[in-house]
């Protein structure tokens, strides 16, 4: 800690190597925050199970730096946010007009660190498709989302990565009155996937839904953290998450619901179900509730278990080999949250990804229909 040569010096050096035009005041300020904070360490409760040590030395190489959305950093921005703001090469900066209805999704893809800003106007509807580079050694993508009164945004984020990919996303959203945010996530493969979803239900009647599936395999780690802040009355939040871990995979799910004083009539439900498929796999789940208002309905549940033996017996009695029967039941378990994705294109895409990943030998079409 007290060494003369700061362990963060390489960030400053990398910054000086950026093209002249990229070294904006905004990026420079972000660098100062990064040098002050560093990347998060496992002694922070939010990073208890995820060690970014392997990423600490990595700095981005030369790239085509474009302008990124500039805005004051959020009050609780950490070193990772500062890192992203320093080295982001590009990002969407979109404002959707009031009452617009976008049929085609906005695409947040591409390589390099990315920083996006998406504003959805009053009563407008939009779709957002997120997929990081499946081969990235280290990629971050940060989203600043704002939904105005009555606006609606559906998000599908998939990670279908190679075994060496290390991917981090963070979506921070503010929901206005009666705004709806619907997020679906599918995390498959990768060495490290860390995905944060922080939602502020800032005004009355806001609603957020998360449907998620993660499959940790190989020696990969998939860590999902959500935080929903109910700050106004009559808010709704739903989380339905399934977790699978096989090989030496590690999965983490941390869902936090905070009901602030005055957020009466909040209705919140969190369901996390997990299946561990190998003796070396591990899943850590924590559904947290923090409640400061009394007239609320909050429930959460977390389960760990095995496939239903009666269902297995049923399938076998109809002639399915055990392996086949197990695969089918596992698939059904995994797909449960994704079946309810409202947008048909998103739903089919998500189910197809899962089917391909989990059961390449089973007839995809039959399962996806």
């Amino acid at each position: 800690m007290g060494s003369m040569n700061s362990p963060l010096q390489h960030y400053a050096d990398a910054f000086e190597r950026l093209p002249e035009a990229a070294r904006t005041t905004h990026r420079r300020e972000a660098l100062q925050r990064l040098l002050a904070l560093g990347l998060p360490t496992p002694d922070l409760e939010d990073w208890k199970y995820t060690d970014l040590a392997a990423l600490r030395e990595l700095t981005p190489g030369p790239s085509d730096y474009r302008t990124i959305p500039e805005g004051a950093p959020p009050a609780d921005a950490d070193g990772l946010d500062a890192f992203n703001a320093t080295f982001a090469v590009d990002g969407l900066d979109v404002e959707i007009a009031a009452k617009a209805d976008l049929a085609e999704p906005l695409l947040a893809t591409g390589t390099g660190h990315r920083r996006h800003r998406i504003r959805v106007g009053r009563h407008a509807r939009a779709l957002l498709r997120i997929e990081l580079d499946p081969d990235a050694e280290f990629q971050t993508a940060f989203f600043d989302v704002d939904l105005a009164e009555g606006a609606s945004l559906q998000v599908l984020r998939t990670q279908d990565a190679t075994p060496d990919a290390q991917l981090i996303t963070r979506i921070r959203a503010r929901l206005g009155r009666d705004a709806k945010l619907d997020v679906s996530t599918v995390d498959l493969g990768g060495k490290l996937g860390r995905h944060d979803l922080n939602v502020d239900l800032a005004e009355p009647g806001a609603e957020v839904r998360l449907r998620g599936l993660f499959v940790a395999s190989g020696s990969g780690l998939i860590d999902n953290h959500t935080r929903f802040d109910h700050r106004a009355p009559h808010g709704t939040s739903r989380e339905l998450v399934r977790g699978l871990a096989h090989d030496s995979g590690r999965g983490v799910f941390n869902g936090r619901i905070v009901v602030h004083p005055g957020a009466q009539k909040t209705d919140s439900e969190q369901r996390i179900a997990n299946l561990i498929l190998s003796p070396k796999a591990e899943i850590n789940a924590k559904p947290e509730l923090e409640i400061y208002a009394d007239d609320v309905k909050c429930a959460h549940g977390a389960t760990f278990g095995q496939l239903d033996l009666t269902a297995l017996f049923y399938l076998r009695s109809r002639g399915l080999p055990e392996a086949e029967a197990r695969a089918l039941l596992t698939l059904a378990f995994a797909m449960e949250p994704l079946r309810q994705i409202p947008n048909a294109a998103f739903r089919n895409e998500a189910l197809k990804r899962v089917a391909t990943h989990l059961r390449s030998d089973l007839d995809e079409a039959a399962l996806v229909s």
Partner: protein
Amino acid sequence: MAATEQTTPENVRDLVTRRVAQAYSAGFVTDVESETVPPGHSEDVVRMISARKQEPEWLLEWRLKAYRRWLKMTEPKWAHVDYKPVDYQSISYFSAPKSMKDRPKSLDEVDPKLLETYKKLGIPLKEQEMLAGVVPQVAVDVVFDSVSVGTTFRKKLAEAGVIFCSISEAVHSHPDLVKKYLGSVVPFGDNYFAALNSAVFSDGSFVFIPKGVRCPMELSTYFRINERNTGQFERTLIVAEERSHVSYLEGCTAPQRDENQLHAAVVELVALDDAQIKYSTVQNWYPGDENGVGGIYNFVTKRGDCRGPRSKISWTQVETGSAITWKYPSCILRGDDSVGEFYSVALTHHRQQADTGTKMIHVGKRTRSTIVSKGIAAGHGQQSYRGLVRVLPLAEGARNHTQCDSLLIGDQCGAHTFPYTEIRNPSAILEHEATTSKIGEDQLFYCRSRGIPEEDAVSMIVNGFCKQVFKELPMEFAVEAQKLLAVSLEGAVG
């Protein structure tokens, strides 16, 4: 160390004399006869305490190791509580029984509010005096019925082969047992407060149940003569040998006054093959006034070790006191087929804050655990359940069921749940359920329309909410606990 081959009383006394001399040579200035060690924490204080209690060298060494470890540790900050930092140098780490002149001379001098509470709980006058710390007018053993009761009990216990005494006494009478088990469940460096306790623990209970013995009665600290002055760093050790069984009660329902703000107790339970330990607590330390002034900080480490196959440890707690509570009675399920249970009712009212829960560590095969936690928050109270269920890779067939419910009374309080689950075996089956609710207006209306006053209705509903836990308490405790809850909730509604 050279002096460990034999610990005869002469040996011990010899050692102590040397130790005391050593403490003095190290520059300790206080008169050895005085009752209280001056505030501040140092190795000398640790040596002093050990010398006062005429402890053997190994125990002093153990205390010193704990102290040195404590110096390197930092106070944990992760609990969901907010309090003024404790100044560890302003605490006096050893006080012999409080001096007579500081105590109230009679019940007339005691806070009338406290007396009112005693009355509501139906506590006999003599016991009221004892609880309020009134100077006994006559020698203790003449006054209190419980003392004579205690003596008869002791005789009966001795016949069964059960050892039940203070831990300082046990250090001299059963040094081998204490040496073998002390710190074997909660090591001296386990956590910040456990290290502090290990260095300066004042006194506590020691219970040993030999092989195959079913303890003939429920053991209660209440009946132990010198219980009142075990001080702020209590240390309890309970060992149940093969096939034995014991039920232990700690605390009492009457509010206890204490000038020491910081309480850092350690409780260790060891259950060998087929043994069962049931540990029930009613904690009602002074919670501070309506504005949270005063009140005890209760930072406790309680852990049970199901060391043998088919052993069982069951924690039941009713927590209504203390300004800040930080307490996680845990079970290490080491033996195959061992069972851990945790039943808890925690209530926070006014400005009280509680961060409490349990840890179930599944190590052995087919180990099972059950967690039932009921949290009640009223006024400005903040209530957190923090629990951990960890299933290790070799814990084939582990099973856990967790249920934690919160009840909110009023819109200024808070109820929080932080359940950690860390699962590393595919055969584990776990369920965790949590709900948060308030007392329904329709429920209250129903009761009131049938002529039940609002306060009684609330108390009735709360008791229903807690029933699952109360039924685990020994019967007479359960009745008192219900009354206690009603008294603690007074003024919460309306």
